């Protein structure tokens, strides 16, 4: 029986081993056998991580792989440090993988890619990468697992080789992410040169001891090391790959990409900042806060505007992920434990809602071979249950109480307000606009509301028609799991909001996450870290949170209604104004060119901008 300290490496090793077994056994096992095996393996990892989450409590589980425990505060090994935020997001990843395995079971009717074991094997490898990245306490190890996550995700994105668009999206994804990972590695090299260490805690402690403060090297290392997580998190202007990849990946993969992988980027930013750079030898909070907040605001606004403009439903959902990641980053950027705890709740609930929406869009693709909002006008009428779930997903995205998204949003707003009074308005506006776009789709596709026409001639846009169907099978009845999995995901989103104690657990978890001296002590000098005293319990569903959730939902409903029904009924002046707004955002749409060269140029611009901003403010 393994002890608690063995759980973190086991949680990585178990899916790795499962992937290997599936890759071999898939040659001989029938389809059903592979799927059952994959399901069991994913469930086993969920159990391991749930155990880890329970056993870690409000402390940290520190695991020196290979038994290289530090002597006199120094070690040569790799350390895994699981606190509740880290093991929580790992658990979220494992749950989403389990959902994706279940969904894919009936989604790809025909085993593709050689044999039936390949797809679930890749999913398990993806899981290992995400869990490893979430639990590691070592910068280079984080790079390795970041790349593992990446490599598997590129392959999964391009899974349908018969369709041209996924290949293009996967290549843009691959080039941008790997390039950013190499920039991160350069940053790791700079830090190693200064401190001679690789662990988060060790580098942080050595930076503090060096007494050089935030000189040019530390600033450069900070920006370079964060390049990888920032690109993974798809913050503007590092976001261009995301809509290209998420819009075209197979639906079960989209659930994972949007639901948890992108959020892991934000997690990486937070983890690296707090453990490595938050001390006196790092970057002052007054430089980090405005820089990250600026990125966050830009990201959420661009994401919301672009989301509203889309007609390709998966691309629309992808831009809504961009917008929400902007909000998550804002929750992290104020550098307050309470806001971070709220953001963690928000992320968990968002994974459920967004995963469900992608899964339901997959049903459209399965039934009609299209994800084009205009082309599908009214055709969803034959699938009322799917339409009802899609609508529920849309209001969950808006943060309607008692969904967990509303709770997380409310908690984050409550705390962020003290730093920037306008932040709650941003949260409300952005969640309303993205939810309105999703509701508009629901109204058009399932209720046949409004007219079928869409868009303006001459706009740069991606239509959702003419997709290669992801499934090639004679017309069949809708498999139950394709509806059951999104329903369960939505139930999970609801559970985060209604189960009492979730908010408190995440609040305390965030306090532990931000306790930098405690982290360093736990990693280097086990047994000396004092426990973090519990703070005041957060206000579970405060009046402000309920009101803000209701307000976003009302705005979303109003927005969708106006978009669907207004065009035929308003005055010429209102139409002209709408037209002007539309033309105003056209250049923004024009920037999303699908050209990898452009994206790399924007990546360079983003890095340069961050260097200048952090450098000027330090």
């Amino acid at each position, binding site marked *: 029986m393994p002890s608690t300290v063995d759980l973190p490496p086991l949680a990585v090793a178990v899916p790795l081993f499962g992937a290997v077994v599936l890759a071999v056994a898939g*040659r001989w096992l029938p389809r059903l056998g592979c799927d059952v095996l994959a399901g069991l393996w994913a469930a086993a990892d969920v159990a391991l991580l749930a155990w880890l989450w329970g056993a870690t409590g409000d402390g940290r589980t520190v695991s020196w792989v290979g038994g*290289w425990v530090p002597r006199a505060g120094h070690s040569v090994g790799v350390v895994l440090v699981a606190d509740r935020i880290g093991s929580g997001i790992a658990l979220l990843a494992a749950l989403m993988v389990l959902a994706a395995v279940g969904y894919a079971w009936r989604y790809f009717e025909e085993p593709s890619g050689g044999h039936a074991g390949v797809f679930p094997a890749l999913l398990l490898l993806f899981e290992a990468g995400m869990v490893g990245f979430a639990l590691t306490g070592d910068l280079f190890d984080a790079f390795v697992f970041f790349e593992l996550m990446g490599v598997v995700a590129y392959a999964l994105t391009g899974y349908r*080789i*018969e369709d041209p668009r996924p290949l293009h999206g996967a290549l843009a994804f691959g080039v941008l992410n790997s390039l950013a990972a190499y920039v991160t590695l350069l940053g790791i090299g700079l830090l190693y040169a200064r401190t001679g260490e690789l662990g988060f805690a060790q580098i942080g402690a050595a930076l503090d001891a060096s007494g050089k403060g935030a000189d040019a090297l530390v600033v450069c290392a900070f920006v370079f090391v964060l390049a990888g997580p920032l690109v993974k998190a798809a913050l503007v202007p590092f976001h261009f790959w995301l809509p290209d990849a998420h819009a075209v990946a197979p639906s079960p993969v989209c659930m994972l990409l949007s639901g948890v992988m992108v959020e892991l980027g934000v997690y990486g930013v937070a983890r690296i900042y707090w453990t490595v750079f938050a001390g006196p030898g790092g970057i002052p909070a007054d430089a980090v806060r405005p820089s990250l907040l600026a990125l966050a605001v830009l990201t959420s606004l661009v994401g919301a505007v672009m989301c509203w403009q889309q007609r390709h439903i998966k691309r629309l959902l992808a831009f809504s992920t961009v917008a929400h990641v902007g909000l998550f980053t804002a929750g992290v950027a104020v550098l307050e434990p309470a806001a971070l705890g709220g953001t963690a709740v928000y992320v968990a609930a968002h994974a459920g809602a967004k995963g469900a929406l992608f899964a339901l869009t997959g049903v459209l693709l399965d039934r009609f071979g299209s994800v084009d909002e205009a082309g599908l006008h009214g055709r969803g009428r034959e699938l009322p249950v799917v339409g009802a779930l899609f609508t529920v997903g849309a209001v969950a995205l808006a943060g309607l109480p008692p969904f967990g998204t509303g709770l997380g949003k409310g908690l984050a707003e409550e705390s962020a307000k003290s730093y920037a009074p306008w932040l709650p308005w941003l949260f409300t506006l952005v969640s309303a606009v993205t939810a309105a776009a999703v509701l508009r789709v629901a109204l058009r596709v399932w209720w046949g509301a409004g007219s079928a026409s869409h868009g303006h001639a001459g706009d740069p846009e991606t239509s959702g028609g003419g997709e290669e169907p992801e499934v090639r099978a004679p017309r069949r009845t809708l498999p139950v799991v394709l509806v059951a999995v999104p329903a369960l995901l939505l139930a999970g989103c609801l559970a985060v909001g209604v189960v009492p104690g979730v908010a408190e657990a995440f609040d305390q978890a965030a306090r532990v996450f931000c306790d930098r001296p405690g982290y360093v002590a736990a990693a280097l000098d086990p047994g000396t870290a004092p426990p973090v005293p519990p703070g005041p319990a957060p206000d579970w569903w405060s009046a402000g949170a309920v009101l803000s959730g209701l307000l976003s939902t009302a705005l979303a409903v109003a927005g969708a209604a106006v978009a669907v029904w207004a065009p035929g009924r308003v005055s010429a002046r209102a139409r002209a104004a709408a037209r002007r707004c539309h033309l105003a955002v056209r250049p923004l749409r024009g920037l999303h060119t699908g050209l990898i060269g452009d994206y790399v140029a924007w990546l360079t611009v983003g890095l340069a901008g961050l260097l200048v901003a952090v450098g000027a403010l330090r």
Partner: protein
Amino acid sequence: MTKAWRLGLFGVAAAVLAGWWAAACVGLPGFGGQVHPYGERAVGASLERHTANVIASVNFDQRAFDTLGEESILFASVLGATMLLRVARDERRQRPLAARVMPSTRLFGAVLLPVTLLTGAYVVAHGQLSPGGGFQGGVVLATGLHLAYIAADYRVLERVRPLTVLDVADAAAAAAFTVLGLVGLVAGASYLSNTLPLGTFGELASGGLVPIINAAVGIEVASGVIVLLARFLDQAVEVGGGPGDGGSRTAGKEDGG
């Protein structure tokens, strides 16, 4: 964005990046410095574990978890490339024609092939003692095998390289690494602990778990790279008939809406 705009934007950003990089490098310790705290600890730990090649000790013992991740990347990429380069529904395989090879080339290949394979095996086996190891030796083995393609032709290569077996060997070696980690757990220590007898310094069997993991990596790399190269060769030589090959383009597909 026009090309000029892109280049201008990139130029400005690159200049800023270059400036900051230069400023950062001023703060670095000068090249060739004598202070390497982690490095010195790693040397000490390696000698303690009777591993002569410190790099092998870092890769397969001290930071073995990194290598576990790295080998998983290799495994994932072989699996992914196999999946991406499968024969699509609208493609077909064509038998390649037998190629005429000059006798001198054939002799060259026939002599060089065993030499490369032996070299590769040697480099793998001595990884914990001398420069080289599972990874380098594995790549030499894999590329060496492809001399068969140059020396003879594709069909000979196909005979000397049973892909299914290699695919399974790749997976088995990856599994071996993961499972070897459990040895430590069974022995009551932590995951990937080096709990085997350490042997005598400088001998082939020294270093405990290191030579075993090294061998697993060697097998995985060799079979993985062979499979990888084989998929690319397949595409270049055998597979045809897709839309890109047949002339008609499917790219400019009609809008559905």
